């Protein structure tokens, strides 16, 4: 990790927006926006995600870091910029409840990594499958907080099979963190322990490795 990346990570953990912006502006003089995203922003978010998984950072820091990075990346790489990553059609949703923070964090981390995705908000199983089918979604990210919602992912997977549009399902949230069998039990294709796992999972799907 470069000294610049270390300082950037520290600014994010301290929720120091001004310092984070200053460091990005300095780095932007020597790197293209995509290089900056790949070499400074994504690694910092990945490391903060790892710290959270180990219990050395808090969810509030993961959330604020994602938000700050999303804002910074929108400044250097606007949503309609053609330099944003070539990617499969993706969407994210929360199944069944109003615990939206996990979805918000994953959304921010993916956008900060140069991805674009649709945000379906809070949906039921049927709403989710219908929206994903209509939008021809290839990667469907589902966040849950409650065990019964996590178990309903099985219904989503079965309905996707019935509808035959072949979206890959990636799950995340507390129930999956507390039971590492659960994502397989419900038929998901992958599980992210933290938001920072998701860009790699999406890359793996894009590269045919998953």
């Amino acid at each position, binding site marked *: 990790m470069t000294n610049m990346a270390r300082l950037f990570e520290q600014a994010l953990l301290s*929720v120091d927006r001004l310092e984070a912006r200053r460091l990005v502006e300095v780095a932007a003089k020597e790197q293209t926006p995509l290089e900056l995203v790949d070499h400074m922003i994504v690694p910092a978010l990945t490391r903060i995600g790892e710290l959270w998984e180990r*219990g050395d*950072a*808090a*969810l*509030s*820091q993961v*959330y*604020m870091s994602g938000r700050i990075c999303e804002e910074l990346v929108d400044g250097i790489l606007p949503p309609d910029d053609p330099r944003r990553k070539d990617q499969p059609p993706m969407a994210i949703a929360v199944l*069944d*409840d*109003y*615990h*939206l*923070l996990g979805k*918000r964090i994953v959304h921010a981390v993916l956008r900060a990594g140069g991805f674009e995705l649709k945000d379906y908000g809070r949906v039921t199983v049927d709403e989710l499958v219908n929206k994903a089918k209509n939008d021809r979604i290839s990667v469907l990210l589902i966040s849950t907080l*409650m*065990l*019964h*919602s996590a*178990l309903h992912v099985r219904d989503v997977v079965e309905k996707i099979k019935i509808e035959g549009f072949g979206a890959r399902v990636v799950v995340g949230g*507390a*129930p999956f963190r*507390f*039971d590492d*069998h*659960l994502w397989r*039990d419900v038929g998901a294709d992958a599980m992210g322990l933290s938001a920072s796992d998701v860009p790699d999972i999406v890359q793996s799907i894009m590269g045919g490795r998953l």
Partner: protein
Amino acid sequence: MKKESMTSMQRVLTTLGHNEPDRVPLFLLVTMHGAKELGMSIKDYFEKAEHVVEGQIRLRAKYSHDCLYTFFYAPVEVEAWGGEVIYAPDGPPNSGRPFISSADMINRLIPPDIKMTPCLAKVIKATQLLKARTGDDCPIIGVVMSPFSLPVMQMGFEHYLDLMIERPGLFEKLMRVNEDFCVEWANAQLAAGATAICYFDPIASPTIVPREIFIRTGFEVARRTLGRIKGPPATHLASGRVLPIINDIVQTGAAVVGVSCVENLTDIKAACRGKISVLGNLNGIEMRRWSAKEADEKVRQAILQAGPGGGFIVSDNHGEIPWAVPDETLLAIGEAVRRHGIYPISGA
């Protein structure tokens, strides 16, 4: 297997005094399972205090555990403030769209009147009825959401974190309103017959906010609030980590702390010994697929790690057993506590 010689109340009070009772107490924090017991939907079950009373009595008889739990569902307080509750056929009632839609609404918040609010009056009535039926044989555990954690349901997690970090003045105002309500709600339950109050405070956990933020926010809130509650409080972080703030939790005046399976129970017990009792730490999510043998082994390990010396109650790590956990598993947990939890703990 040796005979048990204490009532649940004696067993629990002995362990809370950091002494060894006849066996390790067991709190199976079952809520929705009462609906299964009465053969009704979760929504119908929580409609009436009498259902919950009957459910709790039957569940205690079935599992032979050591408490009665008057926790209806997490958003009962949000419902009292005018928020929406969403029922599911196979999970706990959940809070709907947050009712604080703009931060400025905080200036106009008026706490609900407990006696005049049907959902709260129902909990009070259930507590009174349970107390009348069980007397002093078994502790009745009442529940409040901490003033520091309630805003997740009042205004949504994202907006609450923004408020906490970016608008400290308004945050403090919300805390003061919530604190007054929390104290009144806890004391009403104690007056109705609750033995202790479970103070759910997941946001206090270092899993959610860094200790430095907790110290200047949730810690002060807890110290002010618990100091005004007229009964023993048990702070529960609902599956969040606790070790980095264990001494802070002790300083807030909590008598018990609910701990998570993500931390080593031996380390937790070492940090808590003689200062605060430990409640936990069986993984409630994994529990849905445990065999009886796995349940036995998980309970045995927990008792070996935290049982010696007292100051330990076996429980799940979240404060509510999920609906998907089958009866057979809960029965196996009860049997395991009776098999491995007799003092002195052998093999410890």
